């Protein structure tokens, strides 16, 4: 009997290591392992593979959060998608991929180059827009991003667009003035289109550690966030911080980025994600 206990302890340690190394984080991992320990106390004969299945189910239930809201009602209003996140996470490239997908679905999309700060940010989005075959509204480099957003909304409505996707400058969530700027952009969107932005996507680099949690917290406060895009999942990082974010804020992962090409954006699949955590 002692052998069984030692074996289970080893199994729990192994599972804990997998979760921590996947960036799930100490707190969320502890919650999962504690609940697993309770199961073991009730059913002392659980096998190693049964324990693993329980962990997978637990994570799946955490990831189910917010997914009921995923079915959007058809609307005649302009659908405004605001894309936010810290520097270099993959926002601009993700927008190109989304525009490509919308075009494939026969939707009319317009892009807004509201990153007026970073070197060649506007040019980067322009090249993508040209490759996809969608229009882009831009302003002068260094101009007020809120003004560009305003112009883009007016243009999208005038041209009868279905979707307007807004690219914003990368910003660290600790920079109050930059977060205020984002809040202002959100206000303007809401003022010009009722109920907009209908989607605010936080693009998160899959290799992000526990800092992802404070990123989600701050962007939720200033721009609002309706979903997470986990970019660069084609590396070796597991993106486990997204589980901690789901648990802390009830934020669903909506898409995953798996490469630098236009078709490298997939709808998030919780079972596939969980399988990959353990591979």
């Amino acid at each position, binding site marked *: 009997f002692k052998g069984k206990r030692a074996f289970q302890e080893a199994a729990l340690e192994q599972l804990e*290591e997998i979760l*921590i*190394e*996947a*960036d799930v*984080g*100490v707190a969320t991992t502890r919650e999962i392992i504690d609940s697993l320990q309770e199961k073991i106390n009730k059913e002392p004969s659980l096998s190693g593979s049964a324990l693993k299945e329980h962990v997978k189910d637990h994570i799946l239930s955490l990831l189910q959060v917010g997914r009921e809201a995923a079915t959007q009602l058809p609307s005649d209003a302009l659908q405004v998608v605001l894309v936010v996140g*810290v*520097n*270099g*996470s*993959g926002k601009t490239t993700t927008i190109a991929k989304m525009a490509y997908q919308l075009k494939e679905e026969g939707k009319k999309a317009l892009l807004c180059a509201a990153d007026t*700060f*970073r*070197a*060649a940010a506007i*040019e*980067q989005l*322009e*090249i*993508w827009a040209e*490759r996809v075959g969608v229009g882009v509204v831009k302003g002068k480099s260094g101009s007020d991003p809120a003004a560009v957003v305003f112009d883009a909304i007016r243009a999208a409505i005038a041209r009868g667009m279905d979707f307007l996707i807004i690219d914003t400058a990368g910003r*660290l*969530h*600790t920079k109050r003035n930059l977060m205020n700027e984002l809040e202002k952009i959100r206000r303007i969107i809401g003022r010009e289109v009722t109920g907009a932005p209908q989607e605010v996507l936080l693009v998160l*680099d899959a*290799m*992000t*550690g*526990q*800092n*992802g949690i*404070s990123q989600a917290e701050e962007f939720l406060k200033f721009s609002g966030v309706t979903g997470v895009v986990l970019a*660069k999942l*084609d*590396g*070796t*990082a*597991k993106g*486990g*911080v997204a589980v901690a974010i789901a648990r802390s804020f009830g934020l669903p992962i909506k898409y995953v980025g798996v490469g*630098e090409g236009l078709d490298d954006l997939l709808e998030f699949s919780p079972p596939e994600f969980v399988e990959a955590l353990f591979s």
Partner: protein
Amino acid sequence: RLTERLEQVFKRLRGYGKLKEHHIDEALRQIRVVLLEADVNFKVVKEFIAKVKEKSLGERVLESFTPTQQVVKIVRDELIELLGGEKSDLIFSSKAPSILMLVGLQGSGKTTTAGKLGKWLRKRNHSPLLVSTDVHRPAAQEQLKVVAEESGLPVFSDNSSSPLKVCFNSVKIAKREGYDVVVVDTAGRMHVNKELMDELSILKKEIQPTEVLFVADAMTGQDAVRSAKVFNESLDLTGIILTKLDGDARGGAALSIKSVTEKPIKFIGVGERYDDLEPFYPERIVSRILG
């Protein structure tokens, strides 16, 4: 924070009278949590805790009147030693131009750092030339042009589709125009992309840089050891630059990357402007990691 956590532990332990060796494990558990929450790699933490345990028992902290201070000092000193060590100046060639190559994952901050490094070099009376070998990312060449313009530096770019050709041409220009350092910006890439990693090692072999600097994002989590290990095995890095430390990422990736590559962290990026580059001081990042 580590001090508060340890104070609670030792306060509780005081009730047990004479402490046994295993009582130190309670304190070690707290150190482990602090490091994991700071994104230090799981296996790196394991090795680190073993070292701290050995030192703590050796210094008989369980018999000390101030065990918290003693353990915190052991942890801090051990971290500083792991992160510091050899002097981390840039290496130059005796025969100009010296070539500094910037490599790393997508979006880590290489192109921006190229501008920062160029400005840093010019302040120290060097004559740097920026070069972009990124023929893949949309507007990458344009981005480095703007970076160069905004930091008042010369930049070489040609529409040659080969990173190797661009590099050779830039070295020709440097020799002709008297630039003594060429800062080579490369395209971001995944360490698991064999073709792109091979491209980079061929580039290194051909242009023989005196510096191959791995530009890494300070908010990187557990994956930091994996990417750093592959880049190091493939290129034999000469140094690390940790970016975006102007945020609130604890920066445990610094310890992970240092311990798996054993290469010096030479600079940190602390903002988006071209003055936002600082030399790396272990003490500062240790305070961040320990909360």
